[in-house]
Structures are given as C-alpha cells and as structure tokens.
C-alpha cells in the first residue's frame, strides 16, 4: 500500500467486468473473487470537494489539504487527494489527472 505508482490501477471482476478501486475481496455484484489488475486512463472530473482545515490524526503536518470525490472516465468514483497550489481555486466539473498513489491514497492534479 505504501509504494508509489504512476499508473492508476483498478481490479476488474472476471465474472461481471465491474471495475474497483481500491480492490475488493469479493465482487459485491456476484460474489466472485477472480480479479485481474487493469490500468485506467487516470483522467476524471471533480464531483465534489472540500478543504480539510482540522485534520485527522496522522495528517496534522499536511493541513490544510484538499479532498475530492472524482468521477473517472471509466465511470467509477474515487475519493482522492487533490494536489493544488496554495488556495488554488477549483470547482465541481474541473478535469483532473492521476499523479501517484502514496500512503494508500490516490493523488490527482487539476488539468488547466
């Protein structure tokens, strides 16, 4: 979970073809556990976002930080971190691009 990858990876259910990030132990749709790892485009758009000013434990040195729910091009959603310049303005509908996976979280940047 701790490593850095520069391609956004999902798992695909071998039975129904549904994609999941993060991986599942069983496919909730059909109960199957045959998954294949597949790369995604890493492109998506912001569905909603917030700036966390009072952080969770272990995130104190990162505050304030931006979190968004992203709709990926492949049609699945993901809660992720947004890498932005200080107080950078962004909005719902803005396009984002995958940068890295770090500390188990996915990090995206705004595509201007």
């Amino acid at each position, binding site marked *: 979970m701790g490593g850095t990858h520069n391609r956004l990876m999902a798992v695909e259910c071998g039975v129904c073809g549904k994609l999941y990030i993060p991986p599942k132990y069983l496919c909730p749709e059909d109960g199957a556990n045959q998954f294949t790892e597949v790369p995604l485009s890493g492109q998506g758009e912001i569905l909603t976002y*917030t700036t966390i000013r009072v952080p969770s*434990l272990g995130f104190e040195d990162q505050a304030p930080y931006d*979190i968004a729910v992203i709709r990926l091009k492949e049609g699945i959603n993901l*809660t*992720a971190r947004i890498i932005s310049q200080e107080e950078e303005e962004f909005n*719902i509908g803005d396009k984002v691009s995958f940068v890295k996976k770090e500390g188990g*979280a996915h990090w995206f940047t705004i595509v201007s």
Partner: protein
Amino acid sequence: MGLRGVSIIGVGSTPFGVLEGRTLKEMATAACNEAIKDAGVDRGQIQAFYLGNYIAGMILGQETIAPLIVNSLGLNREIPSTKVEGACSSASIALRQGHLLVASGVYDIVLVAGVEKMTSASTEKVTQALASSIDMETEGLTGLTFPGYWALIARRHMYEFGTTIEQIGMVSVKNHNNAVVNPRARFRDPTTLDEVMSSRLITDPLKLFDCCPIADGAAAAVLCAAEMAEDFTKKPVDIIGIAQTTGYSSLYEQAQLVALPATVSAAKQAFEMAKLKPEDIDVVELHDCFTPAEIVDAEDLGFFEKGKGGWAVEEGITQVGGRLPVNPSGGLISKGHPVGATGLGQAYEVVKQLREEHENQVAGAEIGLTHNAGGTGGVCCVNILKRR
C-alpha cells in the same frame, strides 16, 4: 410472523454536555434508574438489558459495560445483558433489539439504554476513536474526516439544487434557538446567522457552528408489551414503526452524493410498518451531526422533495410552530452528541413531546419520528412513535 405491539412506558436521561466528575457507570445508572421509576416497574420485573455504546473501549479502556450497568442498578443477574455498537446509532440499535425481544414474545419488559463519556479524554483520542467508523482500508487513508464527509455532500447538494450556505447556516440558528429552553442541552445560548457565518472554517464550506459538539450523557427507556402498558402508566407511547438498515462504509461508492441510502430505506420500512406517510408526522428528532445533514436527512426521510430541504428551513417549515418541527430539542447541533447515547436521547425528547411534557412543546403532537445515523451512513435507524 405474528409480532406483538411494544410500548415505551418510561424514559430517563442525564443532561448532555460537559458533565465533570460524572462517570460512564454513574450516568448510565442515573438514566436507567430514572426510566425505571418513570415506568413504575419493579427492578425485578426487567427481563433483559441492551446498552448502546461506541467508544468507551477506545477512550476509557472500559469494555463489557452492559453487565457493569446491570450490577450497578442491582438488576436480577439471571437476565441477559448485551452491549451493541453501530457508531452514532448504537443506542437506537439497543432500542430495536429490545423491541424485537418484546415483540416476539420472548420477554414482556426490557430495559434499553445508551451512554457515552467523551469530554474527559483528549481531543486527539476522541477524534481518533470517532474516525474508527470510516473504512480505514480505503477512504480513511485520504485523511477524510466526518465534517469533511458532510462538507463533500453539502457542496454537491449546493451544486445540484442551488441550496445556499445561508440556508445551511439557518439550521444552526434554529437548533441553537430551540435549545435555549432545554435543560438537557449542552449549548443554550441563542445565536444569529451572522455569528454562524462568521465562525471559524473547519472544512469548506462548513464552519464551527455547522458542527455538533461532543458531550457526555446517557439516556434510557423501559419497553413493555403494548397489551400490558396501561398496567404501569397512563401515558404509554407505542412504537408503531421501527427499522434498521445498512448503507455504505464510504462516500465514493454511493451512486449519488446528495443522500444517505440507509436513511431512505429505513424510512421506507418504518413508514410501511406504521402504515403512515411522512405528512402524518407531527414532530421529528433527526441526526443533525452537521447542519447539511439536517437538510439531507429531512429529504431522505420523505418530508421534502430531494433538493428542497434548504428552502424548507428558510421558509420556517421546520421551526416549532411550523408545519413540521425538526429538532425542537436543539438537535445534536445544540443538545450535543454523546455518540452512543444519542439515539435514546432522541427517543426521550419525542416521548416527552407525545406526553405533552416537553419544555419546547409542539402543540398537539401525537406522532413523532426519530432518525439516527451511524458512521458514513453505514447504519441507520428510524423509529415512529405514537401516543395513545
């Protein structure tokens, strides 16, 4: 399956707030003792005990607390005592377990309670304990917090429906003003929209006054077979609808970001069981852990069309004296949120309303509803209560 009717024949509650010097055991004992006395039952008649609690194990290092309270109360040791946990819904789950045991005919009289002691621990410890109901293998790794969760929903709701930040702030104003007369509330000072809007940003767009405070507190109820209720009290309150459902353990997996699916399904089940519609409800205590939650919950419960909840607040519909008073107790926002006790705290407030004994009485209230959500909407309980 033939189920019996179940009534609440007695309720008890401590105040919710910073109760310095009052321990978990003492608060639960006091609330239970008050409920037993209010019911007029003999302690020896109680046949089972269910207790809701969320974080005592994590912040106080105290577990196995159901027998602890049975022993403190001096109840019969031949009865079963069980703790249940479902984050902030824990006390409502205790109520439902008690209901099922009486409805099924296993027992006639059951005591249910909820308790939490929060203010004696450090903020860091409480924050970490509360965050334990976020999925720590997925969404928790992003640094998402509970106010953050509701900020994400609020911003999407504003985007899709034009809900304004002022409408969201008006929830805080209403609930603070409701709590002024409630002696059980933590915050009893009135506030203004200006004060809410100028309070410190916590997680954009939510500010300090959009967030409920932690609290110490306990609440309890004595449940009894409906057919026996009038042997004990002239004012039984019947549980006519009761449901518990499961939602998502993360926000991103929900199909839409402007509703809690577990609330929608629990409301549907509870209304079907009661054979009632949302317009039949006279008073509501719902889970306003953050101000946008009150707007979203009221929609999900079927009181307003999706997207119209903000305008209902603005138009005063949810004020005491409005068409549908919501959180006349002050809600979690002002009464406070002792997480494992909150669900029965809501039931206490609604029972007092239906018995016409409430400090902020809704005139003529005959049917009330409580709504109690846990975690990231992973648990939801809805109860519909009716006076005879």
